[in-house]
C-alpha cells in the first residue's frame, strides 16, 4: 500500500520537530486527560488525511481511533457524512492503522467524539466546500448557486444540473485547500448525527467473520509464549529449558532474562512453556491487599494543588458541624473478554503488527524500541478489539511477539492466557481519599478540604458551590511506582471512580447529618444550572420522593461532571439477610451535549452501569507483594446476567454545548450510588469499595 500524499508521515514529523519527539511523550502523558494538541503532535490540517472519495462515490474515513465495542465505527461515520453531505451508508471506516490513518493519542478518556470529532468534522466540511468549488468549474456555474447533498453537487435552481463527488475526486488526493475554513454545522441542523443509525460491525460480529488479533493468520506464523515470573519484582536466578525438547516442533528462544517458546500450534506452545523450570529471587512480600491503604497514606510524594479558593480557616470558623472521613478503593482488573493479543512480523528492519490495542500510535514506538529498529519502520494495524477499558493502552504482548518474531524469523502470535492477563494487567490503582468538610447553620457547605492519594486527580475537583476549597492530589494513578507493587494504569474513568465514590459518599453523609433529603441537599449546594437540569431529568424518570436518609427505601443518587459530560444517576437496591446487595433499578441521566448516535449512547450507559456493578460489589485484586492471587474468573468475580437491574438511560437534550463523550461518565458514579443506597436501606455507611457482605456486616455492627 502506498503512503497518502496529502499529510505528513511520521518520518516527516520527526524531520520537522526533531528525532527525540515522541520518546519524550510517555504513556502517562497520553493518559493524563489533556487534549491532543498538548502532546506535541496534533491532528493533521490536511483534510485528505481523514477521507478519500472513490470514483464510485464511496467514502473511506481514516481515524487513529479503534473499535473496542463502543460504537465509534458508527459515530465517526455519522460525523463525516453529516459535514461532507454524503449518505451514511457510503462511508467505510479504516481505524487504527498507523500507516493509513492520521496520528492519534489513543482511544481512551471518552475523548473520541470530543476531540477527534471536531477535527474530522472540520476536514469533512472543508472537503465539501472544495468539492463545490470543483463542481463550479466542472458545471460552469458560480459556487454560490450550488449546493452539496447526498454525495452530489447540484445547481440550486436547476437540480438536473449536477455532478457526483466520485467524478470530481476520482479516488485521488484533492490538492486544493481553503484559506478560510468553513464553519461546522450547528447541532440543530444535524440530519445524520442524532440518529440511531446501525453499526457496520454488527453483521460480522454475529456471523463470526469479525477479525480480532487472534484471528489473524500469516504464512509460517508461529504461536509464542514467554516465560513469566511468579511475582512482579522477582529476579531470575537460574532457568532450565531442557524439558521443552520433549515437545516436537517447539523452539526455545532466549535473550538474557527473556525466555520464550514458539510452536506452530498455540495449545502446544502453552504446554511447552509449562515445562520450563526456574529459580527466582523473590522480594520480601510485606504489602498485601489488607494493608495496602496504610502504605498508600505513608508513601511520600509531592502534593499538587488541584484547586484552591477562599480560606479554609475562615470556612472552618463558620462551620457549625464538621466531617472527617477516609475512603478506600482497591486494585481492580480490566479483565476484557479478549485477552491481550498481537501478531508481529519482523522482516529485517521493518515490522508489521496486528494488535488488539487502544493505542496503535505509541505501540509502534514500543515495538521499535524493543527490537532496535526505527519507529517509522513499524506499521501497526488494529483489528477489532475485544474490549479495552483502558487496559489495552498497554501493549506488552506486542513487545513479546516482536521479540519472538525477531528471534525466530517468523511472524509470531502471542495471546495471553487468562492467568497472564490478570498478572500483567495495569490495574486501577488502590487509593485513599481524605475529606474534611463543614456545614454552616443554613446547611450550606462552608469548606471542603480534599486530598487524594495515588488515584490521580481526574474528577477530584469540587462541583458544589463552596466558598472555601482546597483539593490536593498526591502521587499518580498511572505507571505503578510509589506504594504499588505492580504496574497500574487507566481503568474506565481513571481516578474518577475513586474520586467520585469519595465525594458523593461524603455529600450523602453531610445530607444525612443535616437531616435533609439527599437531592434537596445537593440542589441547595449547587449553583451549576446544567447540573440541576440533569438532576431534574433523573428525578422525573425515577419518581424521586424527598425523604431524609436513611429512609429505608434503599434509594440514592449521585451527580457528577466527567470531562464536560454531566451525569445524574439514581438507584434502588435491596440488601438481603446475608448482607448482599441486589441492585434493582438504575436511572442514569446523561447530558453529553448533542448526541451523535442515541442508541450507541444508551449502550454505553447500560454497559457502564453493568460493568460498574463489578467494581462496586465484588472486584478487588488480592495479592501478596508482587504475587497476584486472583488469576481466573473463579475468584475474581465480574458481573453476570443475574446481577443486572432495570437500567433506564435518559439522554438529556442539550444542543448548546459541544458534543462530548459517554464511554466513561456513567460508570464513575456507581460506587457512591450503591454505597449511598446501602446507607438509605440499612443506615450502614461503608467507605471502602467493593461493598462486600463482610464490610456491610461490619458497618452495621
Amino acid at each position, binding site marked *: 500500500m502506498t503512503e497518502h500524499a496529502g499529510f505528513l508521515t511520521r518520518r516527516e514529523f520527526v524531520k520537522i520537530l526533531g528525532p527525540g519527539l515522541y520518546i519524550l511523550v510517555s504513556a502517562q502523558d497520553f493518559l493524563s486527560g489533556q487534549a491532543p494538541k498538548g502532546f506535541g503532535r496534533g491532528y493533521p490540517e490536511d483534510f485528505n488525511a481523514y477521507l478519500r472519495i472513490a470514483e464510485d462515490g464511496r467514502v473511506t474515513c481514516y481515524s487513529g481511533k479503534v473499535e473496542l465495542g463502543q460504537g465509534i465505527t458508527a459515530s465517526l461515520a455519522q460525523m463525516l457524512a453529516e459535514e461532507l453531505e454524503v449518505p451514511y451508508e457510503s462511508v467505510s471506516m479504516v481505524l487504527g492503522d498507523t500507516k493509513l490513518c492520521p496520528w492519534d493519542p489513543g482511544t481512551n478518556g471518552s475523548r473520541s467524539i470530543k476531540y477527534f470529532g471536531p477535527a474530522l468534522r472540520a476536514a469533512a466540511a472543508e472537503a465539501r466546500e472544495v468539492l463545490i468549488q470543483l463542481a463550479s468549474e466542472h458545471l460552469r456555474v458560480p459556487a454560490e448557486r450550488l449546493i452539496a447533498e447526498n454525495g452530489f453537487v447540484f445547481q440550486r435552481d436547476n437540480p438536473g444540473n449536477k455532478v457526483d463527488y466520485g467524478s470530481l475526486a476520482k479516488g485521488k488526493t484533492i490538492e486544493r485547500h481553503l484559506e478560510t475554513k468553513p464553519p461546522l454545522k450547528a447541532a440543530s441542523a444535524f440530519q445524520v448525527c442524532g440518529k440511531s443509525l446501525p453499526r457496520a460491525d454488527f453483521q460480522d460480529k454475529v456471523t463470526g467473520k469479525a477479525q480480532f488479533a487472534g484471528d489473524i493468520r500469516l504464512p509460517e506464523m508461529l504461536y509464542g509464549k514467554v516465560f513469566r515470573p511468579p511475582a512482579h519484582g522477582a529476579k531470575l536466578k537460574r532457568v532450565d529449558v531442557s524439558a521443552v525438547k520433549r515437545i516436537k516442533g517447539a523452539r526455545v528462544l532466549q535473550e538474557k532474562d527473556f525466555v520464550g517458546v514458539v510452536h506452530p500450534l498455540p495449545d502446544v506452545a502453552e504446554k511447552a512453556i509449562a515445562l520450563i523450570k526456574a529459580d527466582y529471587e523473590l522480594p520480601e512480600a510485606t504489602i498485601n491487599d489488607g494493608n495496602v491503604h496504610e502504605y498508600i497514606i505513608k508513601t511520600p510524594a509531592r502534593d499538587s494543588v488541584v484547586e484552591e479558593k477562599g480560606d479554609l480557616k475562615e470556612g472552618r470558623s463558620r462551620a457549625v458541624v464538621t466531617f472527617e472521613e477516609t475512603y478506600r478503593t482497591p486494585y481492580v482488573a480490566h479483565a476484557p*473478554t479478549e485477552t491481550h493479543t498481537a501478531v508481529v512480523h519482523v522482516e529485517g528492519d521493518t515490522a508489521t503488527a496486528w494488535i488488539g490495542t487502544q493505542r496503535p500510535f505509541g505501540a509502534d514506538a514500543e515495538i521499535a524500541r524493543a527490537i532496535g529498529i526505527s519507529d517509522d519502520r513499524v506499521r501497526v494495524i488494529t483489528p477489532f478489539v475485544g474490549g479495552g477499558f483502558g487496559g489495552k493502552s498497554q501493549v506488552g504482548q506486542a513487545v513479546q511477539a516482536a521479540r519472538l518474531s525477531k528471534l525466530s524469523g517468523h511472524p509470531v502470535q502471542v495471546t495471553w492466557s487468562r492467568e497472564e492477563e490478570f498478572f500483567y494487567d495495569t490495574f486501577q490503582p488502590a487509593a485513599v481519599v481524605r475529606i474534611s468538610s463543614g456545614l454552616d447553620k443554613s446547611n450550606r457547605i462552608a469548606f471542603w478540604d480534599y486530598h487524594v492519594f495515588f488515584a490521580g486527580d481526574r474528577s477530584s475537583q469540587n462541583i458544589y458551590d463552596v466558598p472555601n476549597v482546597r483539593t490536593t492530589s498526591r502521587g499518580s494513578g498511572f505507571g505503578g511506582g510509589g506504594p504499588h507493587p505492580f504496574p497500574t494504569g487507566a481503568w474506565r474513568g481513571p481516578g474518577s471512580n475513586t474520586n467520585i465514590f469519595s465525594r458523593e459518599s461524603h455529600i450523602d453523609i453531610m445530607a444525612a447529618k443535616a437531616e435533609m433529603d439527599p437531592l434537596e441537599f445537593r440542589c441547595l449546594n449547587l449553583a451549576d444550572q446544567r447540573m440541576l437540569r440533569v438532576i431534574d431529568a433523573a428525578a422525573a424518570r425515577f419518581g424521586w420522593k424527598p425523604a431524609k436518609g436513611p429512609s429505608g427505601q434503599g434509594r440514592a443518587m449521585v451527580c457528577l461532571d466527567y470531562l464536560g459530560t454531566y451525569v445524574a444517576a439514581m438507584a434502588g437496591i435491596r440488601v438481603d439477610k446475608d448482607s448482599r446487595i441486589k441492585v434493582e433499578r438504575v436511572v442514569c441521566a446523561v447530558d453529553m451535549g448533542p448526541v451523535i448516535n442515541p442508541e450507541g449512547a444508551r449502550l454505553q450507559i447500560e454497559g457502564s452501569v453493568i460493568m460498574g456493578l463489578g467494581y462496586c460489589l465484588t472486584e478487588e485484586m488480592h495479592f501478596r507483594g508482587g504475587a497476584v492471587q486472583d488469576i481466573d474468573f473463579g475468584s475474581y468475580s465480574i458481573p453476570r446476567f443475574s446481577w443486572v437491574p432495570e437500567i433506564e438511560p435518559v439522554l438529556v437534550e442539550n444542543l448548546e454545548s459541544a458534543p462530548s463523550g459517554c464511554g466513561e461518565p456513567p460508570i464513575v458514579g456507581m460506587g457512591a450510588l450503591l454505597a449511598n443506597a446501602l446507607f438509605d436501606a440499612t443506615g450502614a455507611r461503608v467507605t471502602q469499595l467493593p461493598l462486600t457482605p463482610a464490610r456491610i456486616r461490619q458497618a452495621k455492627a
Partner: protein
Amino acid sequence: MEQKIQFTLNDRPVTVTTDGERALLWVLRTDLGLTGAKYGCGQSQCGTCTVIVNNEAIRSCNYPVKNVAGKRVLTIEGLALNGRLHPLQKAFMEHGAVQCGFCTPGMILNSYSLLLKNPTPSREQVVKSMEYNLCRCGSYSRVERAVLAAAAEMKGGEA
C-alpha cells in the same frame, strides 16, 4: 497420541489427524481455520468458546477433540443458512446485543442450544441458562432482550 478423527462440521464431513487430547477450540481455530469460537479463559468459566456438539452447547476450550468423533459440530460460521441470518443473529443486531463482539458467538450459540430445548423460555430461564457466559462490556440486558425476541420470532419453531 495422534489419531484420525472424523466428524461433521457445519454440515460437512471433516477428518483431522491430531492428538485427540487437544482441545476442540484450538483444532477449530488452527487446524480447521474457523476462528469464530474464541479463547477467553481456557477454564470453561467465560463461554466465549461455546460451540454446539450434537445439539448441546459445550465449552470447546476444555473439550478433547477425540470426543467429537462421529458427532455433529456447529460453530457460529455454520449458523446462517445460505447467507440468511438465523433469527438469533438478526435479533442480536436489532437489539444492540453486541458491543466489542468477542463474547457474541458464544452468547448466540449458548442461546441457540437453550431455544432447542426450550423454544419459549421465560426471562428468568434465559438469565439462568446464560449465567455462565461472560460479557465485560455489559450487554447482558440486550442479550436477554434479543433471545426473547428471537424466540418470539421463531414462534416456538426449530432453532
